[in-house]
């Protein structure tokens, strides 16, 4: 049995499938990360010199440089990195020759005005009429292009930020890259479906917007709630009170803990644990749907370790609320049998690491001279 994701060896179904990624930051890289974990060979096309913008994005492991970005590593392990400046006209025949060999192209740069025409649908399908082609962008390829599209716009349009924030305060964004990763994971399902027809089936074209992926995955119930009950999403701090379910993260003795008042049996068990310590247990919830004062007062006397023991022994619906580092540290300290909390497996490719496996061959094919790759490097094309 494997714990997924990453999916592990039992899940390999894309052996022999060649995926080309012309991507940066999160959405396209997250999509091809899933395909890579299922066995596909992924050739990642990066800008010469600087590479994927994620390489310049922290947090970094050790001193900041283009091979030390944790963000880049997490999304791109096991891929093959080649460089090509897709904004240069001379990239066209090389990219075309690469696409002719590929089964899938995943890209998230065509929505930029500068790279738009080179990766448009018609051109890509001319290079390879059987291609599974996946465009990713914050708002969709047909959206207004008067300014650059951003992940924050996708969060605003989808309404995903409407429930994140303190009472009476402003909406908060999702952490960086979450919108793009959500779209990438969503798109991966579409690409896998597109591939399912097998070789020789006709082209499949996807145009996935981050806004639509957020709507489809996270805020669709807000639409239904609005139409059927005219109820608007609210920001309720660390409390969650949707559909009559109530839960809240609140302070405990050495940090925070999460109290869930959803399951009747767990409410009963929590009452019993509190009563043992002499606390009043008539009302676990206050008038606003949060946890009551006695629950708060009881919680502040307990450490995270104590609460976890109580949870495991008595099923009280209370768990420690950890930081990411505490959670992974907890797993590491327990000598876990499962794989660590990571996104991808394999080596992190350095920028252009696989150029020599690809370009001499393609320059020979396109120009009849493999040695032109040297000139292409000098001119900043690769």
């Amino acid at each position, binding site marked *: 049995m494997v714990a997924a994701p990453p999916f592990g060896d039992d899940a390999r179904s894309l052996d022999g499938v060649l995926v080309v990624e012309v991507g940066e930051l999160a959405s396209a890289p997250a999509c091809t990360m899933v395909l890579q974990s299922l066995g596909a060979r992924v050739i990642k096309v990066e800008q010469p010199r600087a590479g994927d913008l994620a390489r310049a994005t922290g947090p970094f492991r050790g001193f900041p440089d283009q091979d030390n970005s944790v963000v880049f590593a997490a999304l791109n392990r096991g891929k093959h990195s080649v460089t090509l400046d897709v904004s240069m006209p001379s990239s066209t025949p090389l990219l075309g020759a690469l696409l002719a060999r590929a089964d899938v192209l995943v890209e998230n740069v065509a929505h930029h005005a500068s790279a738009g025409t080179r990766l448009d649908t018609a051109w890509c399908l001319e290079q390879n009429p059987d291609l599974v082609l996946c465009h990713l962008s914050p708002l969709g390829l047909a959206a207004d292009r008067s300014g650059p599209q951003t992940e924050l716009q996708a969060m605003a349009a989808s309404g995903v930020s409407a429930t994140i924030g303190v009472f009476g305060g402003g909406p908060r964004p999702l952490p*960086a890259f979450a919108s793009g990763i959500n779209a990438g994971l969503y798109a991966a399902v579409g690409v896998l479906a597109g591939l399912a027809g097998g070789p020789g089936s006709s082209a499949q074209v996807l145009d996935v917007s981050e806004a639509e992926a957020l709507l489809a995955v996270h805020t669709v119930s*807000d639409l239904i709630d609005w139409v059927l009950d005219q109820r*608007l999403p609210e920001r309720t701090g660390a409390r969650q009170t949707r*559909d009559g379910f109530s839960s*809240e993260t609140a302070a405990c003795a050495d940090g925070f803990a999460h109290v869930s008042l959803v399951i009747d049996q767990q409410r009963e068990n929590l009452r019993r644990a509190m009563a043992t310590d002499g606390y009043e247990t008539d009302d676990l919830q206050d008038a606003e749907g949060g946890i009551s004062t006695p629950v708060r007062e009881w919680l502040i006397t307990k450490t995270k370790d104590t609460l976890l023991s109580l949870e495991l022994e008595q099923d009280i619906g209370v*768990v420690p609320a950890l930081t990411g580092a505490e959670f992974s540290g907890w797993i590491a300290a327990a000598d876990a049998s499962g794989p660590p909390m990571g996104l991808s497996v394999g080596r992190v490719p350095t920028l252009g690491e696989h150029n020599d496996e690809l370009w001499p061959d393609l320059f020979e094919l396109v120009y009849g001279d493999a040695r032109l790759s040297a000139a292409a490097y000098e001119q900043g094309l690769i």
Partner: protein
Amino acid sequence: MATESLPLDGLTVIDLSHYLAGSMATVLLADLGARVIKVESARRPDGIRRIIPRTQGTMQRPISYQLLRDKELIDLDLKSEAGRDALAVLVREAHVVLENFSPGTLERLGVGLGWLQRTNPAVSLVSIRALTTGTDLDRVKAGAPSIQAMTGVDDALGLVDGEPLALGRPTGDMVAGLNAAAACISAWRRAAKQGAGAHLTVGIDRSLWQLFFAALGDADAAAAAVPRTAERGVPSGFYGTADGIWIALSCIDDAGWLAFAEAVGGAGLRADPRFADGFLRTVNAVALAQTVAEWCADQSVDELRTALSVAGVSCQPLLAPAEQLTSNLFASRGSIEWRSDELVGEHPVVLHRFGRLSSES
């Protein structure tokens, strides 16, 4: 319209799952053409059907109208001999079985992995689990909000030096649903080539780490404390306007900042030495955010949009659900459809069309 061929025509999935994650996976597969058979027992229906009080009478949980659509619903009691026999008939025709029971439950019901593979050697099992750490934590019976708190998500959403914040949504379940859908398609494809099914497990904890890893850590750097999202080096965030509508605004580079500064504060702001380059704007991010917030607070959304579109800076109001129903970002892409239900009447659903994934003719 001629009958459209969908990419997953031919895939049959038996959905034994309860609540959100499994249903998210199978509604996605159904939209892509799969045949989904949802097995439920009238004695213990799926909790997603829970009836909740509304201002206008009662209804099922809103998400159920999205997640239970377009599936064949079959009433089977797996605790009975007849129920298991009926399941065996379905399994012989199926490619994937999806479940999210507590570990060991399928075996106790007598329909575990061994039984499934004896019944149909080519069938795969996809299991969704709350926690997959391989430690004691996995024994915790937790729903999505609890898992989000445990794995670090609430902490990561908090303000710098502030308390944790909740997502307000069962995000972990829904993202696990995406991974489970991918696992189902992959298992189907693999079994078609190799003749034998596989067992794949999707963790809600791992799915949350996928989405939020930049704030939580990653395998190599898991122990490194990653700071909460602070103000970024460019104006980027939600700002209040004079109309009381929140607007998302971001300048993505130096050119964007200069155009924005010109529109907001004229030459004075443009030349402000505190904000002269990206590094200085990061160092002085708090002052920068305050300057932008004060300007936005004096503008109506229309004034702000006009000024920013001249400057070529991206902005987008936080849309309310009623606006999403008509926005050309969704409706014109064919992703929202109206359905009718006997109990509650007309309501929207979101179709998973991927910008119209279909065979190009």
